[in-house]
């Protein structure tokens, strides 16, 4: 536990000084947004074992709504974000209510199909700008004084939001509610027989995850200043799965590590290899599933755990 705290302190300090280390702030903010997205996704896959194959729907629709409110209606930054998150939450409630009626593989297929529905709505609706997407989204100011136009100011705003979301997810997982989710993950029929209304727990988890994914999407829209169809597409849903899987699902830091790896990889590879980047992403998927199912952080934790176990054995 002490090691955990130390890791978090070191990482927080790193995150605080990162923009002064010569790293490009917009890139860092993109990392944070996707890390938040992956953490939100991990709440479902890692702690409840629900594979949502359409999480881009919440990420992207919230991004669109935030962008639309900020550009067309001139809403303030915080109000636009809240508006986006509210839509993601509502969408999560509707899609979740339908999808939790089935488990496992069916759940995955249903969330995928319904997110495709959201994609087509975004493609055809007027307010999304169709194929062009939304551009020139202003970052605005918060609390009436802090202008977010400067990248470093925006960075600390996004970082604060990320840390809040991260702590919030940790709080959920360690709460009694989180323990019930864990029980559902481990043995759903047993949780039902113990009298838990499993579907209701799953739905709440789904709505929470969708809302946080929405928050990540809203922030990304403000950071980059644009939203495109790819934010709400199947490809983005796949990427967040890969981030979580590669970093380690069911671990707190796994999705963060995974997001950093995947976003960095895309950023640098897309210049070098162009269209072949999806081949590489697909290849990582295959390798991950065949040989590396715990992900980086999960694998490290297991090594440490087994070494600690050996020490205990030797001492005893």
């Amino acid at each position, binding site marked *: 536990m002490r090691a955990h705290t130390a890791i978090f302190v070191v990482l927080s300090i790193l995150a605080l000084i990162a923009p002064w280390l010569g790293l490009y702030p917009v890139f860092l903010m993109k990392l944070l947004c996707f890390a938040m997205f992956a953490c939100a996704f991990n709440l479902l896959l890692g702690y409840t074992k629900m594979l949502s194959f359409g999480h881009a729907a919440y990420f992207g629709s919230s991004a669109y709504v935030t962008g639309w409110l900020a550009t067309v209606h001139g809403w303030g930054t915080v109000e636009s974000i809240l508006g986006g998150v509210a839509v993601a939450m509502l969408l999560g409630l509707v899609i979740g209510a339908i999808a939790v009626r089935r488990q496992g593989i*069916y759940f*995955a*297929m249903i969330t995928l199909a319904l997110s*495709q529905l959201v994609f087509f709505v975004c493609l055809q609706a007027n307010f999304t700008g169709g194929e062009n997407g939304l551009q020139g989204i202003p970052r605005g100011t918060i609390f009436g004084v802090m202008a977010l136009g400067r990248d470093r100011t925006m960075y600390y705003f996004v970082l604060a939001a990320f840390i809040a979301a991260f702590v919030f997810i940790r709080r959920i997982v360690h709460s009694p509610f989180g323990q019930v989710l864990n029980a559902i993950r481990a043995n759903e029929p047993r949780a039902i027989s113990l009298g838990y209304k499993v579907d209701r727990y799953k739905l709440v988890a789904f709505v929470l995850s969708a809302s946080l994914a929405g928050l990540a999407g809203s922030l990304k829209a403000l950071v980059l200043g644009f939203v495109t169809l790819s934010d709400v597409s199947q490809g983005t849903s*796949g990427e967040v799965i890969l981030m979580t899987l590669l970093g380690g699902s069911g671990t707190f830091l796994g999705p963060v590590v995974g997001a950093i790896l995947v976003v960095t990889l895309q950023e640098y590879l897309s210049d070098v290899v162009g269209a072949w980047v999806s*081949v590489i992403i697909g*290849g990582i998927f*295959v390798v*991950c599933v065949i040989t590396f199912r715990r992900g980086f952080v999960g694998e490290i934790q297991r090594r440490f755990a087994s070494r600690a176990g050996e020490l205990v054995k030797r001492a005893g």
Partner: protein
Amino acid sequence: MTVVFGVPLPAILGQLMLGLVNGSFYALLSLGLAVIFGLLGVVNFAHGAFYMLGAFAAYIGLQFLGVNYWCALLLAPLAVGLLGIVIERLFLRHLYQLDPLYGLLLTFGIALIAEGTMRGIFGASGKSYPVPESLQGGFNLGFMVLPIYRAWAVFASLTVCGLTWFLIERTRLGAMLRAATENARLVQAFGINVPLMVMTTYGAGVALAALAGVLAAPVTQVSPLMGSSLVIVVFAVVVIGGMGSIIGAIVSGLVLGMIEGLTKVIYPEASNIVVFVIMAVVLIWRPTGLFGRE
């Protein structure tokens, strides 16, 4: 001219016909998906990619190797089916003991590889595949002209669907297959080579997808992404029909294709989403699907 819902009748019939063509592709694809899921417990996300590879195999055959349509109809599914067998041997068989979600993720990765590779080689734009000479032209039915190729595509798909149904439900081989679906270990104890059967089934399911791809090549554009959104529609079809049922897969594929066609005339904006909306309604009303059992 007869008018229904404010739309001329020929337009409706034309779209219905187009819907029937799409529906027969849905039927072929969801049939393969259902057969694979039945025996392997794997939801084959790469199904759309194999459909695309089938169409590309026909295109490559015609452009570079001089293989005509009729040979491609046989050779492309064979080649893609073999590829499927290789994938099953190399990757999928390691996952049978694990949560089925891993099979979905693995085949998703394979779909990305296949689509990315074809896009890297051929670019993202669509290629056209000519309708074979013997199937050009159309029948004049009086109220509309029915293109011969479309009629052929529907006929061929339905014939193959029927044959597959017969093979699975009415032959000894099919009986073994169904038995292995119920209890693979017991069937293996009777001396039947179940791993071989699993491998062949995956190859055959993939070959069905490739066949749909060849049939579709002259109707739609051959492009690397032609399967990626199709596979999601087919997933929805399979959820509506109930995953375990062969007949369910075929019937719901056809019917949903026609409903989609009708929607194109009545309310075009909704034609992309109508299948998903129907899926949501069916799930609320009957969570196991129309033909499914728990």
